[in-house]
């Protein structure tokens, strides 16, 4: 993994949301949605990010595509820190970095025809004339498995799976290098999910794309990713090659998460780890390790000191005192 070329470097990324006083009671005055997250995304890979609701995975995705400003930290894309860039300077990078959204019903303007929806980014770039633009649109529609007839139709005339294809087509128009997909198949029926997953894989091979794939569905993430990061309360608790994470999860949260998935396998039913309680509120996270309130292995140190994400064998990093040396070395 180490010798692979980095496409994106995320360094100490933070996003704190202020809480309005008087509206919500709370001791803290900000929600730490993403709290000091660092990792790399390598060229051509799919990095899956899993986590439960409120873990900060969507906020992370939105910051990386610069739909949202970070509170602190760096996003380095091919050597340039794009975090602080203004709208104009960002322009050149926008076409490299695209996003596919969860809800294909809400993310497409219902009043625009598909041709306009897909053609808009091309029109803004002004590099093609009208005829070339039309050809390009047909070409992209073909790539996602839709016919040219779609151009004159409105989004409501398509099913959920087809709409997600349109969403993907729109992301592809600028020939991006990187696509962040936030729960791209969660709103789809199971029989349609696999169509979209297969399409994303085909496009990745064909166009040499790099994906950040955000999902709460561990099975889907396992299927599509090369590496997987697990988030809990705004932090990455474990990250590494897919095989390690799923076969040998180190963090107690990852272990519990994996054991919670209902399986359709009757031979080797796994032992379930039932976590107590619910994830704490990100506005008032526990001291020390954020997971210690639900962790079956928690000991004294976990309540006091926050564990750092430490690299172990084979590219697998984990933030847990069970694996750290008796004293922390950064």
């Amino acid at each position, binding site marked *: 993994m180490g010798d692979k070329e980095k496409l994106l470097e995320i360094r100490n990324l933070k996003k704190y949301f202020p809480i309005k006083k008087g509206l919500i009671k709370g001791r803290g005055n900000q929600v730490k949605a993403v709290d000091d997250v660092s990792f790399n995304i390598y060229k051509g890979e799919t990095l899956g990010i899993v986590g439960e*609701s409120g873990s900060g995975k969507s906020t992370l995705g939105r910051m990386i595509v610069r739909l949202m400003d970070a509170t602190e930290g760096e996003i380095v894309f091919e050597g340039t820190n794009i975090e602080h860039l203004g709208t104009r300077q960002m322009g050149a990078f926008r076409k490299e970095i695209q996003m596919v959204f969860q809800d294909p019903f809400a993310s497409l303007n219902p009043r625009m025809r598909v041709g306009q929806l897909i053609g808009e980014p091309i029109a803004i770039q002004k590099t093609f004339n009208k005829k070339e633009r039309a050809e390009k649109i047909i070409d992209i529609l073909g790539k996602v498995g839709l016919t040219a007839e779609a151009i004159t139709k409105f989004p409501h005339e398509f099913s959920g799976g087809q709409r997600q294809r349109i969403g993907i087509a729109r992301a592809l128009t600028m020939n991006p290098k990187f696509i962040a997909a936030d729960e791209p198949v969660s709103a789809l029926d*199971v029989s349609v*999910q696999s169509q979209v997953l*297969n399409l994303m894989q085909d496009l990745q091979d064909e166009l040499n794309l790099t994906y950040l794939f955000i999902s709460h569905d561990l*099975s889907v993430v396992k299927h599509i990713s090369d590496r997987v990061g697990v988030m809990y309360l705004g932090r990455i608790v474990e990250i590494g090659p897919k095989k390690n994470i799923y076969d040998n999860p180190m963090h107690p949260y990852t272990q519990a998460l994996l054991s919670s998935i*209902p399986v359709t396998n009757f031979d080797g039913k796994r032992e*379930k780890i039932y976590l107590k309680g*619910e994830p704490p509120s990100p506005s008032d996270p526990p001291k020390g390790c954020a997971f210690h309130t639900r962790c079956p292995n928690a000991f004294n140190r976990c309540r006091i000191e926050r564990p750092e994400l430490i690299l172990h064998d084979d590219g697998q990093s984990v933030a847990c005192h069970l694996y750290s040396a008796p004293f922390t070395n950064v």
Partner: protein
Amino acid sequence: MQSQQINKEPSTIDVNDSLLDVKGLKTYFYMRHGKTAKAVDDVSFSINKGETVALVGESGSGKSITSLSIMRLIQSPPGKIVEGSIKLEGKELLALSENEMSKVRGNEIGMIFQEPMTSLDPVFTIGSQIVESLMKHKMMKKKEAYKQAIELLKIVGFARAEKIVKEFPHQLSGGMRQRVMIAIALSCNPKLLIADEPTTALDVTIQAQILNLMVDMKERFGSSVLLITHDLGVVAEVANRVLVMYGGQIVEEAPVKDLFMDAKHPYTEALLESIPNIDEDVERLESIPGTVPPAHNFPQGCRFADRCKYVMDICREENPKLIEHNSNRKVRCFLYKEEGGFLSGG
């Protein structure tokens, strides 16, 4: 026509161990432009006492309309139960007056819905909502009901139940609200619990807690469960028997293990292959081309024909019947002839 499969046992025994019998249920929706959506089209099944039956299907398959029909909660117009029979312990629910039916709801059939936020009233405390149900259905006095409410909340896993009764729904998380819903549903000790996507809105770790709770509660109260879900993992986890719905009809019925080990209907088979399995690595997922046909425009023949990889000429002309297959299974497909015969194509 298809009802003969049910007549295997003499009706006296049938009544004894079966709790719910649905026969030939048809629920249609009459749409404004004159079209008829056959949301549920000739559905027959039964649920035995103490059994958990899962009704699986994609959106638009008719699974939720089936459960709403059982509760007689179909809004009319546009919807209407056109035909069929729904018997709860031999009592015909479709013949009851609205008044009588409202006594069945809550008392004999409890329900849990997908979104616990919208099914709890935001302006009443948790306690008062449970108390209301107990006073109405169990004729309890207020004080008694209040005590019982705290007891029920403890049963569904609230350590500080005395506090929770005074709280409002918005103060609870999704998983906690779903626990409250389960407490309300169980407050009257119903014979049948209908759970419509009970964990779909929840995170996996919370889902595991709630499923575990449902299994515990089922054993404790001895109720039968009709679980409606699109999640095959959840089915494998809690169900005894599975009904697979497609296009308003049941296309396969089997004990849970048999279904996952050896799916008969091409739809079930394709569905199982199209979900990524956490225990297996595949390069590429199977996918089912196309989409579910709309309920107002089903094809003439088999409703799955257009997406089926084994499709034959006859499939486009005639809709196959749900036939019995090895005594405990049923399948609606021309690939299968009665009693275990497998024709071709597989």
